């Protein structure tokens, strides 16, 4: 937005949190209702990493709702970054790595938008993005760190990082600004109606992001009872009072993976890579029409991915539990 300072003042951060309804209340809603919680211009943090536990159902809903000028941040950005750019939902992605995945080569859509200056890919190191969310989660304005020094990655972000001499040791140290997203989108395997969320497998940066954000929209493979959550509280990773919306979205990461349930839909991702690399403008547009704007509902979208693809991804996903 340009007007807001890079790091929120502590009083602003506390005030925003104080005004949120933190009561133990049910917050189950539809994708379309949850999309209304995201406003044009918001900074939206995206959970998961590359093609893992990407909250694609919620992203799908935001793109369909024609949101504009979102600033996106994520650990590593894959196909969803292409689609944010191609749909006009965002012109600014903050991430450490931006391309569908190593096996599919460099994203032509990312290249088209960045090389023609239609959109911005703001590059930070992976750990730096994580520490920025962590500082945000800790309620502190910056985190000291030891990377991005000496390289052009540090120079490229300019004034947004500071280098100082450590007051204890005299060593050079980087200060990374806290990142407190307006909204975090996070997909989990299960949560209750209040938003107590349990997630399996790799956590990526999701817990810090949830704590840092000013609003959290959870999508979940299934909503379970609060009793079930209370049976294994040690597995709960995100507490309900940080959560503002709960949406049940089975296969909510498809065609990306969700640990223990389904692996990436490789054939579909190959198809996307082919379509998007043939023409970085028409390709993703055609894909958006077919899979984002066309379907009547999330189940209709899943039907378009195909039963064979869903079953194959599930078979591979569940195999992680095999010995």
């Amino acid at each position: 937005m340009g007007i807001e300072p890079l790091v929120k003042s502590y009083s602003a951060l506390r005030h925003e949190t104080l005004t949120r309804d933190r009561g133990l209340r049910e917050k189950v809603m539809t994708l379309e209702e949850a999309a209304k919680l995201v406003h044009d211009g918001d900074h939206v943090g995206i959970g998961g990493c590359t093609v893992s536990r990407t909250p694609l159902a919620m992203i799908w809903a935001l793109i369909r709702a024609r949101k504009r000028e979102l600033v996106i941040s994520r650990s590593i950005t894959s196909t969803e970054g292409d689609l944010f750019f191609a749909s006009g939902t965002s012109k600014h992605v903050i991430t450490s790595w931006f391309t569908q995945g190593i096996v599919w080569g460099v994203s032509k859509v990312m290249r088209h938008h960045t090389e023609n200056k239609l959109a911005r890919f703001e590059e930070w190191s992976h750990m730096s993005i994580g520490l920025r969310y962590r500082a945000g989660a800790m309620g502190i304005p910056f985190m000291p760190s030891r990377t991005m020094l000496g390289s052009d990655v540090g120079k490229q972000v300019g004034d947004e990082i500071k280098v100082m001499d450590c007051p204890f040791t005299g060593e050079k140290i980087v200060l990374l600004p806290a990142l407190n997203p307006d909204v975090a989108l996070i997909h989990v395997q299960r949560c209750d109606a209040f938003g107590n969320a349990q997630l399996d497998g790799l956590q990526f940066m999701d817990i810090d992001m949830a704590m840092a954000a000013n609003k959290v929209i959870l999508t979940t493979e299934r909503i379970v009872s609060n009793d079930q959550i209370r049976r294994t509280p040690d597995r709960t990773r995100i507490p309900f009072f940080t959560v503002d919306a709960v949406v049940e979205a089975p296969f909510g990461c498809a065609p990306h993976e969700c640990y223990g349930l389904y692996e990436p839909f490789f054939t579909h991702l190959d198809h996307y890579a082919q379509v998007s690399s043939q023409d970085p403008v028409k390709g993703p547009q055609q894909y958006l029409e077919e899979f984002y704007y066309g379907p009547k509902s999330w189940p209709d979208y899943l039907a378009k991915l195909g039963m064979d693809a869903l079953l194959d991804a599930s078979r591979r996903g569940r195999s992680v539990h095999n010995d």
Partner: protein
Amino acid sequence: MTKHTKPTSTFTTSELLAVMASRLMTNGQVVFAGIGVPLLAATLAQRLFAPQLTILFEGGTIGPFIVPGELPPSTNEQRCTRRSNMVLPITDVLLLLQRGYVDIGFMGGAQIDRFGNLNSSFIGDAENPKIRLPGTGGGNDISSLTNMIVAMKHEKRRFVADVDFVTSPGWLKGGRSRAESGLPQGGLWRVVTDLAILGFDDETRQMKVLGLHHGVTREQVQDNTGFELKFEDKVETTAPPRADELAVLRELDPHALYTA
């Protein structure tokens, strides 16, 4: 599943890189590995001579074992977690590097210069790039905090005097410039290519040839490098990939996803 039937006397560039890089590992090391050749090399070392070597993935996995034929597409999928000891959040696994628990960082490279700086961000001027590349990922963190091995194809356009953009710092401008810029630890240790094994001079930090692969000449290496190379006084010749090494690689990657 199709089995490779080609004789072991022939091998691909990626197989050569994986074999040569695996021989640089030591039993007991903790190795931060990227996807592709680095993971194959570390796994090969584990299988043949370094059973106590531990692999870390930047996705958060400590000590995975790769299932043959199910190589992960990135360091962030469930395939990366098979039979591992622990999964951590990304930030915490990267902080292990900063704390000093990691011996070797191991990755591929798009462009490298005479001081071992790596570029995976921009080809051409960063303001008006010819090609915008995917960026650092964990590369900047890993190369800032630990000793690095880089495996890449030896081509003139990849081995340049100065990279267009320093994504992952090597020895920066040589001499003591790396430490002076605030990076007192780690640095680029070895570059493994399809022609040679390269290291860096202890004082100047300029790249130099330590070993040549079987049948490769000094001229060949120089001709494929965009700057003047130094040579170690006694340049060794590496032993070609053995049948047992190639067999493991082909078992791990039967569809030649990363070794084609």
